[in-house]
């Protein structure tokens, strides 16, 4: 297997985000949710960005159901390590819990099958034995 040369998180160095990457390895998607406001938020921070309460949120499993908020088709990546993948979809995905994240849409024809607001489902890409990225496919 060829060496994976693309950027990866170094989850082990950062206790705050490690549970996210541990969950993706189990093919689960978890999102921070404030216990006081009940709001999901993304990206993870030490405090809820709504009420600023520190350490009062928990990693909460979500359904993985989402919509394609918007996308662009990458022809020229910033990072040459992605050069062999073009064209691919770089997208803002909105989970049904409301948060938005950057991801790739996979499992469909690029760009023809992509439509703004199309329903998506999380899928898990075990890019290395140590790391799994969450991506999205048409639902």
């Amino acid at each position: 297997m060829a060496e994976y040369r693309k950027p990866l998180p170094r989850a082990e160095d950062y206790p705050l985000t490690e549970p996210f990457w541990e969950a993706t390895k189990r093919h689960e998607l978890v999102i921070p949710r404030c216990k006081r406001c009940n709001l999901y938020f993304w990206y993870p921070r030490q405090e809820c960005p709504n009420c600023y309460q520190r350490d009062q949120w928990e990693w909460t499993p979500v359904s993985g159901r989402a919509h394609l908020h918007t996308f662009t088709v990458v022809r020229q990546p910033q990072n040459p390590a992605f050069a062999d993948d073009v064209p691919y979809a770089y997208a803002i995905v909105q989970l049904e819990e409301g948060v938005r994240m950057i991801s790739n849409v996979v499992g469909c024809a690029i760009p023809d099958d992509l439509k703004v607001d199309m329903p998506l489902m999380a899928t898990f890409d075990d890019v290395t034995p140590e790391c799994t990225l969450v991506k999205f496919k048409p639902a």
Partner: protein
Amino acid sequence: MSIRGAAAIVGYHEIPTRRNYPGRSNWSMLAEAANGAIRDAGLRKDQIDGLLCQEGFNSLTVAEYMQLSPKYTQSMTLHGATATGAVSAGAAAIAAGYADYILCVMGGTRDPEAGGQQPGGFRNPQQMSAQPRGGGGPASRGTEWESPYGPVVAANGGYGLIKQRHMYEFGTTQEQFAKCSVDQRFNALLDPNAAFSGQPITIEDVLNSRFTNDPLHLLECVMPCAGAGAWIMTSAERARALPNKPVYVLGAGGPATSHDTIFMERNVTTSPVALSAPVALRMSGYNARDMQFAEFYDCYTILVMMCLEDAGICPKGEIGPFYASTDTTYKGGFPINTNGGQISGGQPVGGGGGGIKQVIEAARQIMGRAGPRQIAKNDLCLVNG
């Protein structure tokens, strides 16, 4: 409290925007621009007592290099809004009495080894590690929330995401976006400072240019260039004693923002101009539709178009039809980016230096010094960064 009419731009200098200036340093470009602006304003270097610089250039270092001793200085850290942010901050500083003559200076050279990227850009995957920012710090390109998914080169990705959504929400068409590029190119034809001076393009040329990243065409994007510019601001009273027609700042708002990286913006098709423009206009006493022309930051067609509608030049979502039905060249009913902006003028790189094109062209038109591109109704301009 208002700074309406308290300060004015009284001189400027623009180094022509070109693909590169081999052998020139950033500092040397800035010094040349500063010297030109000081002379244009009819001032001596030792009269400069304020200095506003661009992102990534510590103003202390700039002062040292140019042997200036400003009693008021700072660097603006506002990406593309750096130049207009300097006008806003400079006018307020003049009104507050922090300084009498403020030099604003921005721009730089390109790094030819970076292959068209901006100086300091990432050059290899090892430098583009997906680092968390201290475990839960801000998201931005280069962190674990974006890098693993392969961001687009330069700033193209974010604007592709915005354009895609704008087309979906409002039905804006590729032809309407192309009209923006074509009108601006017409304006650049007669500007010797523009990188694409004398090179006309058509709607078809834009539509046939390659996708940098769909739905963004190459001819809707800025070309990173070398260049620099500077201008001088002073009080209205002092301005009247100087040789050039003063360009008064009648209102200013912002800088406004809610995010650094686009996926954290809740409404990607609305820009922070929706926050800043009402402040500037209220201060000025004018409505957006009173404006006679506009100089709007234009790294991409979608940005200039989205910001124009957020400023109230047309109703939200109707900028596509506005462009289709309006001649926005210097000969037209509502001129926009009368020097070709950055898309046809080239983007002087370096810490938001591109915005000098808009600020200086606004001053040039209001002073009546735009030569063959001079517009007739040149009193009221809305400038955005």
